[in-house]
């Protein structure tokens, strides 16, 4: 028997390495990975991490925040140092059973205080602004899809940058209802759209999703202000056999420059919506929740200090939230930089201790089965030096 006829284990590993496949883990992972669910919630407007997860153990927190600090008797305590905002009650219950965790000092790779540029960077996954033109989640679909097709769905009238790219994704928002007339005109239009790269694929995908929605009876269920009902419906799409396993939602209104409020008020209302959405996803996913990771993330945090109008201005690091039955239980993700004067970034913002791509990479590797090489080159270009946060997923 020669080495040529029967490859040695070493040769096989070498071969796998050359292909960039994590060979040994593949067989078990592959079977299960296909059924995994990932939901990304983009919280737009710069969500104030210091209110999402108040650092009660940090002596400077109350001093810097004054009347908008969440008082310690209201905070839902996670451990001696951190808690959750009182409006994040459902998230807190999940955290208590190891199904939610926070990363309290996360930031995008470049220091930017423009909402729009920072959201672009968060969603493209580039190492710097304009380092990539398509969304990292779309490129992740392309990289994870070898031999299997992963579908993704955005919820809402507009599809976000994070999901834009070469892989056609679905989108859905409530309120549609198909009739036989519409279906007929749609088939004629398909013919007119044959050479239309924008409208052709969009109409085909949209009609298919609408048909699914009709079957799920989704077109009628949630009211305009019913965040939870909306999320329950969104979750139902993820449960459709052969349907999408990745979903993206956007929440707006986190830009609290004035009258931010504390345990109640403007920001509290938006956090309640976020909590309802996470709770609705859990409810709607049912048994699939155990195979799900939800990531809630924002473009940057807000100033450590309260500003002159009872709010906070654009800052740097913020809190990222992970939830889902697929999480490995554990404490705070990443280090806490503290709010000491000397520790603040530019003497004004919470300093980041974790690059947001580290968390994304960890989730994509451990939960969606992406290999390191595509994570470093395709999904997050030039990120070889940015280590994935491992051990987030059970």
């Amino acid at each position, binding site marked *: 028997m020669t080495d040529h006829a029967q490859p040695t284990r070493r040769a096989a590993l070498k071969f796998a390495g050359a292909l960039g496949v994590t060979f040994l883990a593949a067989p078990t992972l592959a079977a299960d990975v296909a059924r995994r669910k990932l939901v990304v919630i983009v919280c737009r407007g710069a969500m104030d991490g210091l209110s999402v997860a108040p650092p009660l153990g940090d002596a400077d927190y109350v001093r810097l925040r004054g009347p908008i600090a969440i008082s310690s008797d209201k905070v839902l305590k996670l451990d001696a140092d951190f808690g959750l905002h009182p409006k994040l009650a459902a998230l807190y219950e999940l955290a208590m059973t190891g199904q939610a965790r926070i990363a309290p000092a996360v930031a995008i790779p470049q220091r930017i205080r423009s909402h729009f540029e920072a959201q672009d960077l968060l969603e493209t996954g580039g190492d710097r602004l304009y380092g990539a033109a398509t969304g990292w989640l779309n490129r992740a679909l392309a990289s994870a899809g070898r031999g299997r097709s992963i579908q993704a769905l955005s919820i809402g009238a507009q599809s976000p940058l994070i999901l834009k790219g070469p892989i056609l994704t679905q989108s859905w928002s409530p309120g549609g209802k198909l009739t036989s007339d519409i279906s007929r005109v749609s088939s004629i239009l398909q013919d007119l759209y044959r050479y239309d790269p924008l409208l052709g694929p969009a109409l085909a*995908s949209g009609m298919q999703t609408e048909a699914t929605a009709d079957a799920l009876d989704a077109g009628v269920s949630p009211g305009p202000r019913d965040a939870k009902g909306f999320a329950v419906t969104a979750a139902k799409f993820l449960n459709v056999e052969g349907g999408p396993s990745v979903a993206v939602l956007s929440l707006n209104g986190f830009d609290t420059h004035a009258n931010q409020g504390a345990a109640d008020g403007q920001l509290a209302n938006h956090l309640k919506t976020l909590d309802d959405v996470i709770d609705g996803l859990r409810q709607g996913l049912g048994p699939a929740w155990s195979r799900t990771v939800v990531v809630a993330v924002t473009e940057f945090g807000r100033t450590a200090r309260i500003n002159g109008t009872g709010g906070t201005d654009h800052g740097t690091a913020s809190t990222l939230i992970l939830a889902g039955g697929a999480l490995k239980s554990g404490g705070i993700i990443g280090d806490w930089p503290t709010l000491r004067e000397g520790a603040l970034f530019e003497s004004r913002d919470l300093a980041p201790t974790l690059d947001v791509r580290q968390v994304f990479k960890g989730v994509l590797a451990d939960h969606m089965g992406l290999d390191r090489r595509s994570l470093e080159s395709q999904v997050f270009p030039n990120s070889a030096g940015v280590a994935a946060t491992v051990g987030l997923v059970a």
Partner: protein
Amino acid sequence: MTAEASNALRAAIAVTRFGLGARPGELADATLDPQTWLKAQIRREGADQPAGALPDSRDRLMALVAYRDEVKTFKADAAAKPQPKAMTETAPGGGMMADAPGRKRAVSTLLKAERRDTLRPLLEGVGDEIFARTVLAARTDAPFRERWTLFWANHFTVSAVKVESAVLVGPFEREAIRPHIFGRFEDLLVASSTHPGMLIYLDQARSAGSNSMAGRLRKMGLNENLAREILELHTVGADSGYAQADVTEFARALTGYSIGSEREPGPRQGRFLFRAPLHEPGARTVMGRTYAEGGEDQARRIFADLAANPATADHIARKLAIHFVANDPPPALVARLRSAYLSSHGDLAQLADALITAPDAWDSGQRKFKTPNEFLVSSYRTVDAAPTQAARDVIQPLTALGQRPFNAAQPNGWSEQASDWAAPDAVVKRLTWAARFAEAYTPQTTEPMQVAQATLGARLTSPVAAAISRAETRPEAMTLLLMSPEFQRR
């Protein structure tokens, strides 16, 4: 291409790319000389004003303040301690306000009435504004002028994300934008940055310097939101090289830019008011230039320099080229607009002229996908009609298509990217709206092919014409026209 054919195509471009989509007969008007037809719509006095008796920002703001005061009084009443028992016992029959639960009920009835009588009309006023501007867009015979207006309204976005800004978006557009769209950019910038709508939307009205009187005595402080967005969105743009220190310094210069409250004498209520006690004393340095103390005038001098900054010319030239021509606009077009801006010192009438006469702007490729509002307005123009109801005809359909009027999610306004408007769900929603619209607006006398020719002109392709001629019903033919690749683009 013959001169005649080329003029027909240029007319079709003029009415859709520069205008808002052809009304019956408009294409014929534009065909003789498309450029002259467009140029004639530029006028010094600015945009048209929407029809109807629409209250100004002062009336709207004061009505809101009055409502808030009433609510506060009621709530204070509700929270007040119950009256002493002896008193209630002496009241014959107990009376309506005798006990705490009774009092709460009474207050909640009053609150409900107040909401119905004051708040609801105010919010309906927002619908009136949306309706009036949509009717204007659907009916105007100067559609380039109106597109140019809507471009600037979007450039200086004020959004209805707060109740206070919701009631002011309409007045902001009428008072700060429309009069200035063919004037100097600096005047437009000042009008926008001093209008109560913008001052409230971007949190400027209560911003105070830490060394101002209000900062020292009342612990009021700085809010840098408006300063940042003026630099990033309205003038020089994010890539022009300013730093956080410039934002903070500009914000300090802007302190005092505020609004007259109900405590001011009548004529000053609800209008721009410079409040010296909020203003941070001292000289400010913004983008390398130092501005001596001068109260209100300090920020005015910064506005003037920002308007004259070549980075502002770059930023605006690029945005215009993107809006009118393509998301990756021809560099020559951007350069032409930039130099027109600089040589005219930001004269927007000359800038409009430079756009219309730019050869690159007439490229026959249709690279702009209509926004939902453009799609809806051009559909009404095609059938020579206008919406008759704000909620049903305008607000609900545009909300479903992702563009709820006056409600841009963020201060950078509505997107220019086709992919933001052509998500699969959005295309299906366009189709369902188009089908319903076609049912309502296709009388038996309509000849769909004539409508198609009158609206698309030389842009009507033979596959679309064939589909229209083969359609089973008139509404189906209309739906196909409205959803055709050419009608969806401009």
